[in-house]
């Protein structure tokens, strides 16, 4: 998780002070949680192995959260992300069992996600269905398709009987490089860097924030709102499928119920990291931190042998507090505004 801090310095993704404060706060919470659990577990929590386990565990949530960050910035939402995760994973696994090479199968899996995102985006931009309803519907539809592909059963790579393929696939999902760093976490950090740059450095990123901040103003400035939003949903579909493929790879088997409910984890990660649910604000780095906050909580509570049901209560409460903090901060900001006095009016 420390690697995310290094990234801050490198990319300089903070755009202004309030954003910095928000991330600083999320980052502070993360550090606090680490120390808190470190002390309570007598140092066990801070063992390198444990921290790397957390990094591996948060990877799919974080990747899912990246796409959701894009969608949330437009002021939309994608409730189908968890289903697309399952769908992309199972299509990729199925492609491997059908004899496609691993790179081709991954491509097919990600294209599945792109297509799913395109469908979501078309419903929302062209048919004007509200994002909540459109993606609630497709959540069911994509889950159904996932079940159809797997015919209700997991698609196992191991059952193929090809040692080599199983090994390569499993390495993608859970192997380590440079000693003990999980491969998927590397993928996650690379994805974060790329998408972070897209958000902060490209014309597309600027358009995305403009659309989310004031859609009509953006439209009247000649920004193609439909294309901008559509792209956000496509990115979300692609990252969802990517998370699904990594998850399937770790188990060498794609579960047809994989990713169920993950969309909410992804949204929570984004929101804790400072992405606004009403659009116009957000960033990838925050989502990385947010995902780690969730992962650290879960892992720490496990180590403390907190009852699983109690864990759910705690995590749920934290999500609500996170959103509450976000909205109250925004409100305070809006209320405290005093226009800069017009100097020229005195002349």
């Amino acid at each position, binding site marked *: 998780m420390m690697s995310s801090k290094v990234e801050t310095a490198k990319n300089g993704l903070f755009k202004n002070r309030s954003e910095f404060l928000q991330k600083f706060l999320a980052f502070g919470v993360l550090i606090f949680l680490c120390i808190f659990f470190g002390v309570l577990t007598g140092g066990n929590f801070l063992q390198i192995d444990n921290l790397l386990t957390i990094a591996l565990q948060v990877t799919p949530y974080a990747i899912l959260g990246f796409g959701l960050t894009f969608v949330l910035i437009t002021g939309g939402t994608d409730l189908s992300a968890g289903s697309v995760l399952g769908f992309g994973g199972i299509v990729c696994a199925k492609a491997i069992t059908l004899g496609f090479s691993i790179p081709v199968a991954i491509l097919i899996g990600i294209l599945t996600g792109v297509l799913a995102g395109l469908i979501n985006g078309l419903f929302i931009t062209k048919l004007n269905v509200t994002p909540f309803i459109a993606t609630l519907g497709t959540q069911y539809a994509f889950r159904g398709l996932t079940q159809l592909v797997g015919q209700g059963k997991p698609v196992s790579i191991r059952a193929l009987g090809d040692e080599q393929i199983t090994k390569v696939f499993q390495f993608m999902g859970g192997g380590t490089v440079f000693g003990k760093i999980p491969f998927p976490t590397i993928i996650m950090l690379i994805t974060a860097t790329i998408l972070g740059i897209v958000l902060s450095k490209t014309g597309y990123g600027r358009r995305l924030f403009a659309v989310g*901040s004031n859609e009509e103003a953006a*439209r009247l400035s000649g*920004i193609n709102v439909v294309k901008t939003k559509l792209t956000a949903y496509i990115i979300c579909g692609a990252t969802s499928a990517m998370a699904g493929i990594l998850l399937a790879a770790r188990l060498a088997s794609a579960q047809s119920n994989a990713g169920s409910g993950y969309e909410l984890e992804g949204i929570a990660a984004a929101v804790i990291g400072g992405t606004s649910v009403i659009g116009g604000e957000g960033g990838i780095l925050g989502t990385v931190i947010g995902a780690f906050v969730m992962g650290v909580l879960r892992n720490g509570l496990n180590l403390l042998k907190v009852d699983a049901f109690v864990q759910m209560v705690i995590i749920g409460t934290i999500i609500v507090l996170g959103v509450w903090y976000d909205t109250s901060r925004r409100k305070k900001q809006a209320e405290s505004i005093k226009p800069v006095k017009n100097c020229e009016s005195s002349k």
Partner: protein
Amino acid sequence: MTELLRMCGISKSFPGVRALSNVSLSLNAGEVHALCGENGAGKSTLMKILSGVHQADEGDIFIEGKKVSIDNTKKAQQLGISIIFQEFNLCPHLTVADNIWLDRQPKTGPFVDDKKLIEKTQQILDELGLSINPKALVRSLSVAEQQMVEIAKAISFNSKILILDEPTAALTQSEIDSLFNIIYKLKAKGVGMVYISHRLEELARIADRVSVIRDGEYIGTYPYKEVTIDTLVHLMVGRELNNKYPVYQRKIGNVLFEARNIASNKVDVEHIQVHAGEILGIAGLMGAGRTELARAIFGADKTFHKEVFVDGKLVEINSITSAIKNGIGYITEDRKKDGLALNMTVERNVNMAFISNLCKKGFVNESAAKTNADKYINSLRIKTPSMFQKTRNLSGGNQQKIVLAKWLCNDIKVLIFDEPTRGIDVGAKYEIYELMNRLSDNGVAIIMISSDLQEILGMSDRIAVMCNGRISGVLNREEATQEKILRYATGLCDEEGKGA
């Protein structure tokens, strides 16, 4: 004749604006009292004070001789004051009966007594001579019928004082007739009505007295029979043009922009043209279709038909992108609603319509973006602590300059200003006018929509007046007067088929 209402010396200020100063109004039982004034004169503010939406800073309100304070809308309702706004406050998914008796339905125990509810509703509808089904859903009714339901609701509160704000703005002639029949009935019942309307000719049919407000000040009250429309118009606008506009000699060139046969749901304009360096003012009352015309030209709204020529060449404008590509820009009426992204920085807003020009292979050239923002912050003298300040924190005048900068980045030939100085202070206004003159110096053709007649007269080279979606008259700078503009705007005279 008993006096129902007296408002004395009412004053009200909003931050930076004195909306009303020492305004008085009285209303007798069974009287229709017309309230006249230009857009923004303070009529609506006065009525909002009467109905408890706003509270007066100074002044007293007496109802039937007793001094009252109207702290909220509930209190106004209890005092028998009902207001029918231009925008209705009905629940479209509920029935007529439920709307009229909202939260006051007759009940047996915890349950709504449907039979009694319908009965009571029918009684009121009969009283007003309305043939509306009490069980009909409000959304299935026409605009006129919905208005009747609003009136019925007011009657159900036993309102003695009824405020009608532009009630005929959306009605057809026969609907207006039936509205007036109801007004006659209410008069006979002793209800006093304050009636706000721009349609001076129809006031003659119902108004007993008329009061005029101008720039938040009370001008006078007159028996309607004793004033002519001409005196009324003069009273509404009659002020001297003071020197608020930069003196400027414009150099007018060839026709730069021309549009023919613009037809959409809301506008029907045969011809409009603007020369290089010229400012064409577009005047008209609210709802005359001025903004709709601008949006149609800019490709923001769908049109059935339109031919646009820029620099003498026929161009196809079917989207905002194509409008921008052909050098047309549009500065919207409400900069907060659709002009700026308030949560974003000055730099991002200035460059919003210019992003694609700042990109290389999809990546924004940040230093070019900063240079560009810096250039306009300096040349337009935008007062901001830094280009990374959120636009939300700037004053109205500076926000307006940012919107302007957004268009100046692009190679703009035709620029439409929609209410360019609304809500900004006098000093900043003057600066905006100077910027408009600078643009005209550079040969930009400017279309300026404004509800401020002084602004129209002070800045325009020619003035097109709109009424009901059409251009009802075109005036040269020399011949234009406020009276003439208002005559065209209210539809009192109409030179049909004349283009701008």
